[in-house]
């Protein structure tokens, strides 16, 4: 018999398995040199400056080995950062966009740096707040504690095309200074084609980088109260600013018309400002680098962004205020909580934010650029002394660029910055929504801003109310669970005693049984039962892992069905869409192939492989492939090519844009899913082969053919399989995650207009991006209940349509 191999071989195998289990759990020894892990600074092919900075740091600190993560967590994925902080394995230093610092600090995810700054005072070249632009420094201060040291800054000014000014009869040395002038110049610079489309547009209020934030600050409107408790998005001055933006859009043809023109804009050498398709733009200092590289001949100049008349005149509330203001942002280096090498990390931060390092970076980057034949325009440091040095040593390549670079640096001290608040992201999203709705005339500026203000305020209130919530008390539930488990154990023990046989053999067998079932019993308690109970408790908590959980009662569920109903509803709608169309189509495809294969065709194995292989392609690889097959750009992608030769040619319908368009994202997912229908085909084939041929013969004698046979024999006989596929398909559709995550952009965003937001993605975002563990648990239970209800519903409905052979026998 084949089964009886030499026994030692089997035991060797078992031993091997155990050894591998132990080896897998074993950790390697620690390294001697300090490995400083830095995220957010990505070393690549173009980062000669950064590489030189880091190399110099390592040369001076031979005890430190800097590891810049160039993939994965390194690319600023907030989910990864939070997971690593929560998991106790954070990077030592992180480069973060400054406006998010407040958010991280409010969650206690970053380490305050005040102790280091205090110790610095004794060193010869301390890191001092005075050396940095006030706005850049303050943006990283939360509740009077410094959480990050700024590295770079950018700010925003008005770029204008002097050639177009001359052509329009405007003085190229007199850029618009006030809002009224801006409007007037915009009209003069805008030109239309014969068909009414734009040949050129003078100015687009929100193209470039200005947003309502800048207009609002110019008009004296603040978006948050100074104490950070109240959102003031709909204050009088901000409403006026939004009204101004809306009017400006209307004066050149309206928001929608401008948007259509804007959708054709490209970047780099085809930037519409470089090409003269737009006369003026408020944009960031980073554009100077692009101008030097892609449009060295452009006759442009920069000026402070135009302001309301009152501000320029210094009247009323603007008394003593600067005439012009700008908006600054940029990056900074911070240390996550739990960083393992804080001292080394601080040395790195100090070095990287210092002047000398900036000069080394500029030198190396300049050399790199010149080798590639590109001009070098330095980026601004947050340290004003460094900028002065840089301007002296690395003067921009042309007088025009020099003028612009100087003008930008001169504006930096008058910069405003985004309010430091943990609702920074919500505030931003809210202002974008208000801006879109007002400019498209869906709402008045006042109504749009008020509506959004209320939403942000709700979040603020909730966060502040959190501090007053009672801590979740573990004693009661633990006691109850403990008591219940004890009772259960006692009861089980009694049952076991009673049912345990008296013979030695029976006892022995029972013992073996328990031992052999132990892995599952243990796993069940630790990985299923425990988590299940924990999940119920969590659903009533507010828990972000870094702080002790607080009891919120039914609030999580309430939020789910009130404030977040829109997104939650969308997630389930999307899942239902995928299920309602995807499952029947998948069944139909698989069944048709199986029926063809069941016709006793030759080459069955070949066909079967051809249909089956796509279903074993890893979901991620399949998603990556389909993102390319169904490319959003109509000029790319295989299906688009087919579409263009047929549907576009015949009916003039353009390829739809697939995963980039809300209406077509889900059909795209369904098409991608159908590619894997070959797996189901194997099941159908097994089902079809199980139907006795005598049934068909009898039917033939009765005169039933084709459709009638299918309808009255095949379908009823397959109904248990259909039922199984329906149940599995539904459960699966509600837990869809992997491919949706990849196809919706790979950041958990949910695709265009959340058209690919599915329940588990929503849960994942809440659990591992925002670390609202309690809220996520509530979502999980809603998913569970829905799955349960659907399954029970199908079980109940099956008796009306599923045909089981056994009943008839």
């Amino acid at each position, binding site marked *: 018999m084949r089964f009886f191999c030499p026994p030692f071989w089997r035991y060797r195998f078992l031993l091997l398995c155990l050894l591998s289990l132990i080896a897998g759990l074993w950790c390697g020894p620690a390294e001697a040199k300090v490995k400083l892990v830095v995220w957010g600074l990505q070393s690549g092919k173009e980062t000669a400056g950064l590489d030189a900075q880091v190399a110099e740091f390592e040369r001076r600190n031979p005890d430190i080995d800097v590891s810049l993560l160039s993939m994965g967590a390194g690319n600023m994925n907030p989910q990864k950062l939070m997971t690593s902080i929560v998991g106790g394995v954070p990077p030592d230093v992180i480069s973060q966009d400054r406006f998010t610092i407040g958010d991280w600090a409010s969650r206690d995810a970053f380490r305050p740096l005040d102790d280091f700054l205090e110790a610095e005072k004794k060193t010869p070249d301390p890191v001092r707040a005075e050396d940095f632009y006030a706005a850049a420094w303050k943006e990283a201060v939360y509740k009077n504690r410094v959480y990050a040291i700024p590295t770079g800054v950018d700010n925003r000014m008005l770029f204008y095309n002097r050639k177009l000014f001359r052509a329009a009869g405007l003085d190229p040395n007199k850029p618009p200074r006030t809002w009224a002038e801006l409007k007037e110049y915009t009209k003069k610079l805008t030109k239309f084609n014969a068909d009414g489309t734009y040949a050129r547009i003078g100015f687009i209020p929100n193209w470039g980088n200005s947003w309502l934030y800048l207009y609002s600050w110019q008009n004296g409107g603040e978006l948050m109260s100074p104490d950070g408790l109240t959102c003031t998005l709909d204050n009088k001055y901000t409403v006026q600013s939004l009204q101004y933006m809306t009017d400006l859009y209307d004066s050149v043809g309206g928001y929608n018309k401008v948007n259509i023109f804007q959708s054709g804009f490209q970047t780099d050498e085809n930037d519409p400002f470089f090409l003269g398709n737009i006369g003026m733009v408020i944009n960031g200092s980073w554009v100077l680098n692009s101008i030097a590289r892609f449009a060295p001949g452009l006759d442009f100049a920069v000026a402070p962004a135009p302001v309301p008349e009152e501000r320029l005149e210094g009247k009323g509330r603007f008394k003593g205020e600067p005439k012009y203001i700008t908006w600054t942002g940029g990056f900074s280096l911070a240390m996550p909580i739990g960083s393992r090498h804080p001292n080394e990390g601080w040395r790195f931060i100090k070095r990287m934010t210092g002047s000398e390092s900036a000069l080394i970076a500029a030198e190396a980057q300049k050399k790199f650029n010149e080798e590639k034949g590109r001009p070098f325009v330095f980026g601004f440091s947050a340290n004003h002394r460094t900028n002065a040095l840089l301007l002296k040593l690395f003067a921009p390549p042309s007088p025009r660029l020099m003028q612009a670079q100087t003008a930008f640096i001169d504006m930096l001290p008058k910069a405003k910055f985004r309010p430091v608040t943990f609702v920074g992201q919500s505030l931003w999203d809210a202002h974008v929504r208000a801006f879109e709705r007002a400019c498209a005339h869906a709402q008045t500026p006042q109504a749009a801003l008020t509506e959004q203000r209320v939403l942000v305020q709700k979040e603020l209130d909730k966060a502040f109310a959190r501090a007053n919530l009672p801590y979740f008390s573990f004693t009661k539930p633990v006691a109850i669970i403990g008591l219940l488990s004890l009772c259960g154990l006692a009861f089980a023990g009694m049952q076991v005693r009673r049912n345990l046989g008296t013979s030695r053999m029976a006892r022995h067998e029972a013992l073996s049984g328990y031992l052999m079932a132990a892995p*599952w019993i243990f796993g069940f308690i630790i990985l299923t039962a425990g988590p299940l109970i924990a999940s119920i408790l969590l659903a009533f908590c507010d828990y972000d892992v870094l702080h002790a959980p607080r009891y919120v009662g039914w609030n999580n569920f309430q939020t789910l069905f009130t404030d977040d109903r829109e997104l939650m509803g969308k997630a389930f709608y999307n899942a239902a869409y995928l299920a309602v169309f995807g499952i029947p189509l998948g069944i139909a495809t698989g069944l048709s192939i199986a029926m063809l294969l069941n016709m006793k065709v030759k080459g069955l194995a070949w066909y079967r492989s051809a249909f089956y292989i796509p279903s074993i392609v890893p979901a991620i690889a399949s998603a990556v492939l389909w993102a390319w097959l169904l490319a959003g750009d109509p000029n790319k992608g295989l299906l688009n090519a087919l579409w263009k030769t047929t549907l576009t040619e015949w009916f003039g319908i353009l390829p739809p844009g697939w995963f980039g368009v809300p209406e077509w994202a889900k059909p795209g997912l369904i098409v991608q899913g159908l590619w894997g229908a070959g797996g189901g085909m194997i099941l159908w084939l097994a089902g079809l082969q199980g139907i006795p041929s005598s049934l068909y013969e009898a039917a033939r004698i009765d005169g039933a053919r084709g459709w009638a046979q299918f309808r009255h024999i095949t379908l009823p006989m397959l109904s248990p399989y259909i039922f199984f596929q329906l149940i599995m398909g539904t459960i699966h559709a509600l837990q869809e995650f992997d491919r949706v995550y990849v196809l919706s952009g790979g950041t958990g965003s949910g695709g265009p207009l959340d058209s690919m937001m599915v329940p588990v993605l929503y849960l994942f975002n809440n659990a591992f991006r925002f670390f609202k563990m309690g809220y996520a648990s509530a979502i*999980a239970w809603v998913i569970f209940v829905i799955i349960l209800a659907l399954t029970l519903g199908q079980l109940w409905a099956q008796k009306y349509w599923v045909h089981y052979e056994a009943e008839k026998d």
Partner: protein
Amino acid sequence: MTAFAWIIAIVLSAFATVSLIASSISALRSKRAPAILASAVFIAGFAAAVLLARNPYWTALAAVASGLAARVLLRRTSRNSEHAAETWKLSAAHSALIAGSVLFLIPFVWLISSSLKTDDEQASFPPVWIPTQQITSDTVKNAEGEPAGLSWWTRNGKRIKVLEVAELPSGEVQVRPVDQPQTMEMLVATRDDLTKIRHVSPRWKNYSEALAYLPPETNYGLVFLGNTLFLTLMTVIGTVLSSSMVAYAFARLRWPGKKALFVVLLATMMIPGAVTMMPQFLIFRSLGWIDTLKPLWVPAFFGSAFNIFLLRQFFMSIPTELEDAAKIDGCGAFGIYWRIMLPMVKPALAAISIMTVLGAWNNFQGPLIYLSSPQKMPLAYALQLYQQQHGGEPGLLMAASTLMVLPIIILFFFTQRYFIEGVSLTGFGGR
């Protein structure tokens, strides 16, 4: 109007094709020379009409004519009408299957073809299936120090063979005619006037470049592969060992509480992973297992409810005689399980292993939650991150995808039977 004509023509052509195939099969079977000749003529006629006319009306007409002729021929060469219908049906089935399997394999072919194409061919219209590259000069180098490419330059209605010497900032190209290499004249051509001279040649460099772009600490992606292999191996060992052992306990041993626990086991299959996801994360966090591979494979050693259930059914179906004989010989429960029962369910174990391999190889959510260091990432997660970084370079991305898919396809060809059995057994068909 032409649109509908085309649709009708395509439908008619499909029918005609089936009829033509059926008639030629039937003619070949009949071994009558005139019949074979006639069917060849019909096919040639139809093909000629379609290819030459390129017009929906003629295509439709040719389809109807050749289709009808083929049907007549089919009837004439068959014994009776039933036999003719049978032949027609079979050839229809084959046609549909061939068309369908080609349709299913096209994305694959496209994957591999894209992975071997240069960037300028990726989005060309009509699509290019066989990768080609521009022919380059052996001697002349361009401004970037690479061999200069050959092109046809259409100039004043004449075609000249030129070398592309340099790309100018204006977007134009400096060229040099091939037949006068020493010319001092500076010739500048616009891109539109240049047609690259190409030859069939896959760009294997996509693969090496795709790997070279990976962070150095991942050793050209070998680390990813190593991680995936490790995870797959551990998961399979864990699942097979523990599930079969537990299944045996449930199937064959008598112990109090077995029935109740079995009901619990069945019930756990209903619990969606989403519910236990967060608490499990917290458990692994408290063990200090974040950013390690352990949360991804250790749970496999605790058995999976579904596999336990399946294997229990298998163990139940094995007759008790063998077991009794072993018992008499003094073999203990573990010995019986290990030496007698396990070998009996080998096919089931193989099928379960295959399904587990697939699951572990493709696992994405787990790594996404638990891992952040590149050195610890498995292939699936690495590929997704790669897409994020190199989405604009389809050649490299498709090469990377191919590398991830290939091992699974190879595995399939060697263990096809178990794949098919695994699907039928577990019922996990579609994704």
